[in-house]
């Protein structure tokens, strides 16, 4: 039995740990302000009550090492924390853990324009990195709705996806080097600014997507690419999901580089309208919408004309300048926030083979309508990647507790369907706390055993983010 399974550390232990941290790292590193505890103890999931014992905000990688060493020795669990925009509870501290907030370590180093790399500290905000790179005509193509808050360290620890995956792939593809502190306080500097470094096991890959369970990322060397040429941003309305899939095929065969292909339903849009007072600018609206982004080129308009001739879409528009493009994007990017602001969504993030999406969605609607009549389902997602965000909304007349009690059953029904269609129970949000009961629907016992062995090797006392992904 590891030390962490004996439950949260006692108050006296915590007190001496906090004093030791301040002694080693200087005053002002630790906070036990109740406002900080409730704010920094959770992420965008709303279902867990935050209850950390304290917040530590290191200024340097040495501070991170010192904090981990002290906590590991005293048996105080540590939850690494970035911008806390995660949706699986990976950054939730609900059992008296110490939250290690990386916000103060946000330096963005000098950009190497020839090598197209930049070293940033883990707490650098994604959008700040984008803005710095854009000045030099470069970008780090990891992009999603929460980029204004999310940290690079969190992006990497969750191997974040987002709206550009269709063109650039996951975060994993854009990390050249990683600096990590282990639970023991020991530090690893892996990779660095080399595209090619074929020298044994690529250790940094272990930490990418590990959700803070194997080590704390303190800095990363990011791979950059050229800023794409101007984009045409289009919004289409379509009759149904099958038309969406046909439009996706047409977009794959189109004479342009596809930058994004995002789908949402009229129910999502209705929520955006309620919360943000924004609605579809189209005159004919179906049940499905697609935001499509294409690198601008002379052939784009002929392709569009052809779409209309074939009757693939009900209606559509193309942004005429950047602020129109931004307002079309707002319809899609405002969904997640609008769902939370207008109700209580039970969120799921699943992936399916794209050829099976339509059949799966029909099955899902049928299953939910039979078992949970009147429950609203809001579907949106990066449909080009086969990635669907399934949001089951709490009916207004159902108590929160009663709803949460039943969502577990909803998940079981849905994940059984996902499994039967050969999909994944978590496309890009990770496992965290929210999905750990279902890990077995997507990973075999042998795989999980291998993951446990790695966890034990790197974090023998189960200090780092215990209880996330699986119970060690």
């Amino acid at each position: 039995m590891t030390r962490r399974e004996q439950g949260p550390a006692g108050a006296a232990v915590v007190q001496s740990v906090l004093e030791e941290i301040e002694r080693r790292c200087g005053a002002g590193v630790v906070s036990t302000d109740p406002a900080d505890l409730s704010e920094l103890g959770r992420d965008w999931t709303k279902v867990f009550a935050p209850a950390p014992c304290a917040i530590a905000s290191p200024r340097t990688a040495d501070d991170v090492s010192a904090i981990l060493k002290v906590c590991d020795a005293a048996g105080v669990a540590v939850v690494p924390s970035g911008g806390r925009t995660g949706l699986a509870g990976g950054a939730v501290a609900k059992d008296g853990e110490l939250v290690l907030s990386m916000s103060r370590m946000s330096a963005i180093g000098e950009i190497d324009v020839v090598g197209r790399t930049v070293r940033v500290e883990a707490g650098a905000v994604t959008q700040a990195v984008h803005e710095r790179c854009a000045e030099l005509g470069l970008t780090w193509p990891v992009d999603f709705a929460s980029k204004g808050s999310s940290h690079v360290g969190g992006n990497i620890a969750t191997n974040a996806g987002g709206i550009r995956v269709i063109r650039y792939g996951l975060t994993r593809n854009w990390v050249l080097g990683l600096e990590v502190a282990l639970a023991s306080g020991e530090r690893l500097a892996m990779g660095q600014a080399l595209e090619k470094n074929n020298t044994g096991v690529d250790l940094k890959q272990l930490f990418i997507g590990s959700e803070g369970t194997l080590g704390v990322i303190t800095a990363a060397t990011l791979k950059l690419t050229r800023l794409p040429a101007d984009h045409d941003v289009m919004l289409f309305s379509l009759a149904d999901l099958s038309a969406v899939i046909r439009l996706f095929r047409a977009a794959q065969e189109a004479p342009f580089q596809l930058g994004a292909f995002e789908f949402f339903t009229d129910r999502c849009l209705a929520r955006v309208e309620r919360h943000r007072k924004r609605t579809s600018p189209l005159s004919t609206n179906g049940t499905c919408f697609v935001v499509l982004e294409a690198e601008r080129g002379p052939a784009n308009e002929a392709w569009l004309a052809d779409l209309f001739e074939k009757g693939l879409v009900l209606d559509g528009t193309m942004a005429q300048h950047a602020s129109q493009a931004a307002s079309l994007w707002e319809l899609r990017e405002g969904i997640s926030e609008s769902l939370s602001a207008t109700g209580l969504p039970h969120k799921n993030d699943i992936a399916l083979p794209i050829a099976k999406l339509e059949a799966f969605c029909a099955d899902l609607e049928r299953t939910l309508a039979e078992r949970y009549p009147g429950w609203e389902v809001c579907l949106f997602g990066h449909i080009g990647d086969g990635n669907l965000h399934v949001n089951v909304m709490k009916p207004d007349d159902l108590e929160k507790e009663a709803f949460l009690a039943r969502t577990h059953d909803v998940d079981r029904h849905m994940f059984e369907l996902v499994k039967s269609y050969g999909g994944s129970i978590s496309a890009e949000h990770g496992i965290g706390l929210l999905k750990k009961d279902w890990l077995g629907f997507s990973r075999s016992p042998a795989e999980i055993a291998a993951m446990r062995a790695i966890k034990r090797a790197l974090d023998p006392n189960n200090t780092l983010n215990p209880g996330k992904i699986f119970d060690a």
Partner: protein
Amino acid sequence: MKILVALKRVADPDNANKVKIPGSGDRVDTTGLEWKPNPFDEYALEAALRLTENGQQPKTRAGEVVVVTFGPKETETTLRAALATGADKAIRVDATDDQLDGDLVARALKTLVEREKPDLVVMGKQAVDGDSNQVGQILAELLDWPQATFAATIEEEAAGSVLVGREVDGGVAKLRVKLPAVVTVDLRIVAGASVYSTKTARTFKYNEGVRFAALPAIMAAKKKPLTEVKLAELAADTKLKVTYAKFQAPPARKAGIKVKDVAELVDKLQKEAKVL
């Protein structure tokens, strides 16, 4: 009804932090700025489109909207966008911003109005770059036409007039303006029930904001007429009345401070800011 809409391309105010002034201070460096139509002029175009249609059937145009801009060749994208949104024809007066001031633009527009003979000229109340708020007023004076500025509502009337609502302190002033006339518009002109042609039922409500170009219209806009006119053709005297002496960035804001509690805040407000 035939309407002339004056559109100006401005640097995107959302990117105001990219505005750079060279050491010499003789101009604003425009390289790297993103451009968009002046928002108030976009609202003017939306108002003009609403005045030349039945709101229930916006695809059938009932009237003519001519858009005009003053700018270099690349401002034609602004005009093409206006054509895609529903305007019928476009005119580009070839000029760069440093060759223009409000007075010269108004004089050149006067000649264009005499050529095009619109029933109504609609434009934004001001451009968000220079914020001069002059062109509409000067143009009305030069044409000796009635003017209504800062319009929040416009209703077309059967008897050859428009009823314009202007928001003033304590209420709305309504002006009945006989056509031909010049109207400059404010933000609220794009609210759902702000503009009605005689064809649109009063029960109809528009979507808030400006309309987007429908995809078939974007294609069709390629074939709509877009002509170029030389500035000298429109104004014999191209001398400027307003010249800029020097450009200077506003002083940078000082960093704020964090206070520990309300007591400290009150103390600072009393002793340092001296506002309490």
